[in-house]
C-alpha cells in the first residue's frame, strides 16, 4: 500500500486497468442482453401470455416488449460511449480552438465542435458571453449554439434504433449544415447591436479552472453518471412513446396518414416545425410515435423537420437566451433556423 502511494503513476495505471476491465465486462453483458430481447419478447407475448400470432393485440404487445428494452439498451450504451468521447472536449478548449478562426471555416469548425462539446441549454448564456468576449464572431458563435442542441444525442440514438443508421446519419449531417448556413447568414446580417449592451462591457477575470487531467477511470465514472442522469430523465417518455406507437402499429390502418403527413401535403413540413417548437421535454417520447406515424404513410422529411424543431428551437432555451439577445436577434435566430429546417424537410421529401 505504502509503495503505491509513493508511486501515483502506478496507482493510476492499475485504477485505469480495473476501469477498462469493468467497462469491457459491461459491454459483453450489454451485447448478450441485446441479443436475447427479441426471442424473449416473442416468447412472453405468444407463449406466456398466449396471445394469438398475427392478431392486432399480439403485434402491439410484441412490438412494445421488444422496443422498450431495445431502445433503453441502445440509449444507455451509446450515451455512455458519447459521454466518454465528450470528456475530451470542454467549452474552454472549444473557445480556444475557435479564437483565431475567420467566418466560413470558423462556422464549420464551430458546428462540429457544437456536436462534440458537452452542452446544456442552461449554460447557453455564460457560453455565449465567453465566446463573444473572446472575440469569436457572432455568426460563428451561433453556428455553435445551433449545432449543440440540434444534434441531440438522445434523438440521434433513438433515430438509429428506430429507423437505422441512414436516417440517423441524415439527421446528423443536415443538422450540421443548418447550423453552418444559419450561422453564416446571421454573421452577414451584422446584428452585433442586437446583443444586450452589458455583454460588450463584461471583462473576464482570467481565472479559468486549470485544465483538468482526467484518468480513464474518472472519464468512465463521469460518463456513467451522465448516462444515468439522462436515462432517468427520459425513460418514462420512451416507454409512453413506444406504448402509443405500439397502439398505432397494431390498430391504425396502413396509409391512413399519407394524406395529412405524407410528402404530397406541402403544408405538412412547416406545420411540423411550428408544432415542434413548444414540445421540449418529450423529444425522447416523440420519436417512437413519429416512427409509428411514418409506417402509416407520414413522410421522412416531415418527421425529421419535426424532430429538429423540437430539439433546436426549444422555448426554454429561447427564454434563457433572451437575457443576452435583444428580441430582434432572437427572432432572426428562430427565423433563420426554422427556414433551414423547413428547407431540409422539403428536400428529404423530394429526394426519398
Amino acid at each position, binding site marked *: 500500500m505504502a509503495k503505491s502511494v509513493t508511486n501515483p503513476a502506478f496507482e493510476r495505471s492499475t485504477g485505469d486497468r480495473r476501469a477498462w476491465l469493468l467497462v469491457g465486462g459491461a459491454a459483453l453483458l450489454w451485447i448478450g442482453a441485446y441479443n436475447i430481447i427479441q426471442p424473449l419478447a416473442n416468447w412472453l407475448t405468444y407463449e406466456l401470455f398466449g396471445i394469438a400470432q398475427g392478431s392486432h393485440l399480439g403485434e402491439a404487445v410484441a412490438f412494445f416488449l421488444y422496443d422498450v428494452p431495445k431502445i433503453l439498451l441502445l440509449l444507455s450504451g451509446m450515451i455512455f460511449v458519447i459521454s466518454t468521447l465528450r470528456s475530451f472536449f*470542454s*467549452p*474552454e478548449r472549444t*473557445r480556444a480552438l475557435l479564437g483565431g478562426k475567420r467566418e466560413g471555416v470558423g462556422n464549420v469548425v464551430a458546428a462540429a465542435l457544437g456536436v462534440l462539446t*458537452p452542452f*446544456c441549454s*442552461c*449554460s447557453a*448564456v*455564460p*457560453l455565449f*458571453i*465567453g465566446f463573444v*468576449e473572446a472575440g469569436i464572431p457572432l455568426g460563428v458563435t451561433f453556428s455553435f449554439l445551433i449545432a449543440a442542441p440540434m444534434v441531440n444525442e438522445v434523438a440521434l440514438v433513438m433515430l438509429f434504433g428506430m429507423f437505422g443508421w441512414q436516417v440517423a446519419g441524415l439527421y446528423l449531417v443536415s443538422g450540421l449544415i443548418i447550423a453552418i448556413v444559419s450561422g453564416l447568414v446571421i454573421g452577414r446580417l451584422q446584428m452585433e447591436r442586437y446583443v444586450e449592451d*452589458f455583454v460588450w*462591457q*463584461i*471583462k*473576464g*477575470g*482570467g*481565472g*479559468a*479552472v486549470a485544465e483538468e487531467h482526467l484518468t480513464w477511470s474518472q472519464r468512465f465514472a*463521469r460518463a456513467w453518471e451522465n448516462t444515468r442522469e439522462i436515462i432517468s430523465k427520459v425513460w418514462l417518455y420512451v416507454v409512453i412513446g413506444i406504448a402509443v406507437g405500439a397502439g398505432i402499429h397494431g390498430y391504425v390502418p396502413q396509409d391512413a396518414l399519407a394524406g395529412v403527413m405524407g410528402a404530397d401535403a406541402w403544408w405538412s413540413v412547416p406545420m411540423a416545425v411550428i408544432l415542434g417548437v413548444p414540445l421540449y421535454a418529450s423529444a425522447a417520447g416523440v420519436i417512437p410515435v413519429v416512427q409509428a406515424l411514418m409506417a402509416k404513410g407520414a413522410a421522412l422529411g416531415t418527421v425529421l423537420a419535426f424532430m429538429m424543431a423540437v430539439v433546436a428551437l426549444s422555448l426554454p432555451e429561447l427564454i*434563457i437566451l433572451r*437575457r*443576452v439577445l435583444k428580441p430582434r436577434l432572437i427572432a432572426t435566430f428562430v427565423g433563420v433556423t426554422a427556414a433551414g429546417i423547413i428547407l431540409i424537410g422539403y428536400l428529404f421529401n423530394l429526394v426519398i
Partner: protein
Amino acid sequence: MLNVKILGSGCANCKRLETIVRKVIADHGLQAEIEKVTDYGQMMRWNLMKTPGLVVNDTLVSSGRIPTEAEIASWLTS
C-alpha cells in the same frame, strides 16, 4: 471563515450543488458562508462557461458538473 460561492442562474443543477455543499459543511462542522451568484457579469470574473460553478475563497474549483461529496470536502478542508 470559508467563503463559498455557487455560480449559476437557478437551474436545477445549481440547486442540487447548493444542497450538497450545505450537507458537506454540516457533516464536517465547518464555518462557512454561502453566497449565490446569479449575475452573469459577476460570473465572468472567473471566466465561467458552464454552470453550475463552485468558488471556494475566490478560487473557481469546479464548473459544469456536480462534484462528489468527497471532492467538495477536500476543497473545503484543504
